[in-house]
């Protein structure tokens, strides 16, 4: 491989201030995080940032040349919408490098109050076509779009030619099957919403029930999302990763997707060639050691690719969900 590339930005997750420092130290160009409330799509107990922690974390990152992007990417819900607008105020006051938004109300607020504030369009906005992305660019001056994980590399390349903003693409981590920002499955089962409360399959509604035959059911609210035989490893009951029965097929099957993780390390050169200028690692809910391993490995890989070397990413396979990994939609349309 002799070809060299413009080096893409490596965008890494931080669920805690400690994870943020770890990501910065491991070579993240930018770290994204959220406040400890409903204003972002990873509103999990014990996770995320107080305003004070955010201020200190931004200082830590900026001192080391890294950016901090604040995700305000759930949907501001009346009559509580002020909570989301307050988050935008905070990002502007603390000089976050960008705010990641999905909601038209939040974007509209940000652009009218802080014309200089850089906006990224969250994957939660589900903008999957050039027309959709251009709409957000024209209306709100979006600088970068985070693409949904449903496009092939050639499709990303085609979109890149038709839009006036940068592209950020997910390259590693958990892969949800539903279009982001358009899934009410959790609310259907638990009464808390992914869009309105930033919650997906909340741990408070999860129960594991052992049956007399040795199998273990993983339930969310009133529903059995999966049931594991005695010799099977149990998983977390995320609705879109469960096994269900359909008429004519009484053996439960993964109706949506198997529990696999996205790993696009082998496609990095293709992605950069297709116009992706920022590579995003999923996992704000993950531990510091996970963040350290993945960010370090991707730091080396991006540097290798930029220098025309073949990256070695064998260590990453161990970090994927259940050890199973996929290139998802990126490699082939057959995924659909």
């Amino acid at each position, binding site marked *: 491989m002799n070809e060299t590339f413009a080096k893409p930005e490596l965008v890494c997750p931080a669920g805690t201030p400690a994870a943020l420092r770890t990501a910065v130290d491991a070579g993240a160009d930018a770290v994204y995080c959220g406040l400890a409330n409903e204003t972002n799509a990873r509103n999990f107990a014990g996770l995320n940032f107080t305003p004070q922690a955010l201020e200190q974390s931004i200082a830590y990152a900026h001192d080391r040349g890294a950016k901090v992007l604040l995700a305000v990417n759930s949907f501001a*819900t*009346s009559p509580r919408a002020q909570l989301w607008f307050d988050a935008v105020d905070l990002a502007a006051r603390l000089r976050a490098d960008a705010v990641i938004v999905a909601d038209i109300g939040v974007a509209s607020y940000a652009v009218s109050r802080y014309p200089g504030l850089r906006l990224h369009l969250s994957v939660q906005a589900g903008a999957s076509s050039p027309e959709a992305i251009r709409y957000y660019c024209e209306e709100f001056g979006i600088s970068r779009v985070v693409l949904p994980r449903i496009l092939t590399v050639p499709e990303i390349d085609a979109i890149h030619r038709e839009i006036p903003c940068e592209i950020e693409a997910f390259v590693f981590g958990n892969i949800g099957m539903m279009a982001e920002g358009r899934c*009410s499955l959790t609310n259907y089962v638990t009464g808390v919403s992914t869009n309105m409360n930033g919650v997906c399959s909340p741990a408070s509604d999860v129960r594991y029930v052992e049956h007399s035959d040795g199998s273990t059911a993983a339930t969310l609210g009133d529903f059995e999302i999966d049931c594991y035989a005695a010799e099977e490893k149990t998983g977390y009951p995320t609705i879109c990763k469960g096994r269900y029965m359909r008429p004519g097929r009484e053996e439960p099957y993964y109706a949506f997707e198997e529990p696999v993780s996205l790993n696009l390390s082998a496609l990095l050169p293709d992605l950069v060639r297709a116009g992706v200028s920022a590579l995003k690692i999923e996992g704000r809910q993950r531990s510091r050691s996970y963040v350290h391993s993945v960010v370090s490995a991707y730091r080396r890989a991006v540097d290798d690719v930029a220098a025309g070397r073949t990256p070695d990413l064998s260590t990453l396979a161990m970090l994927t969900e259940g050890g199973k990994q996929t290139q998802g939609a990126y490699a082939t349309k057959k995924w659909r």
Partner: protein
Amino acid sequence: MAKPQLTMGPVLFHWSAEQKRDFWFRVADEAPVDVAYLGEVICSKRTPFFDSHLPEVAERLIAGGKKVVWVTMAEVLSKLDRNTVSGMIVLEGAEIEANDSSALSRLSGRPHRIGQYFNVYNELAMEHLARNGACHFTLPVELPAGSFSTLAATAHKLGAGMEVQIFGRVGLALSARCYHARAHGRTKDNCLFVCENDPDGMDLKTHSGAPFLSINGIQTLSHRFLNLSREVGELKEIGVTAFRLSPHSCDMIAVSRLYRELLDERVTADETDNRLVELGVRQPMMNGFFHAKPGFERVAAHASGE
């Protein structure tokens, strides 16, 4: 206060062209609905089957005194999706309901509607869209009563209509992958239209046999049917102007007559519920989202929302 409107939402499922045509003809001739939403929301591969029937169906609906609104697709990805949306938008004089942001930039400056698949959760979003010409909003199905009332006040201030689905399975999620095709070991590109066998969706049950969800191509729906018979009074009071029925294979003419009577306060909610049972509508039904409870739940007595 103007008389509350009753509307017939788009057919979400892949019914045969004849079934769809006959359905809309009957709606045109017999259903007491004010508005009919025409067009494919879920899968652009289905559109060629019915495109040639659309003009006669629209004509018949208009002759029957219905307003015709054309819907755009909920998820726009492929070239065919994009062409389907553009083809709809260039229809001269047509009122469009946008269900995805890709339709919006081309509708700017022209009166249009915002559909239930587009996320409008707050008044600022509503105001922004209204500035570009949005004049009617059908709100996301998961919103609780407390949000409806704030948004209804904003819609009223903007002179916009506000619509809420009150009957039928509820769309819970969209995906790029076709789960109908997947269930039969196929992919979206070689699906052979296996979704045509499930006029109300393909039911999914849990391991323990509990009915759970329903699949319609790339869409995941509730297994239960929504029924806001008990909530209609409150919705009218807070200023909701239109009430949507989502079509199913049951007798939708009878269903529409029933809800018209309910809106006109000629039957009670209890009578409505009993008659839905007689009509063979799947039980139990759901109303949880309105009450800020798990969506699938049936909240029996009136309980106030969030």
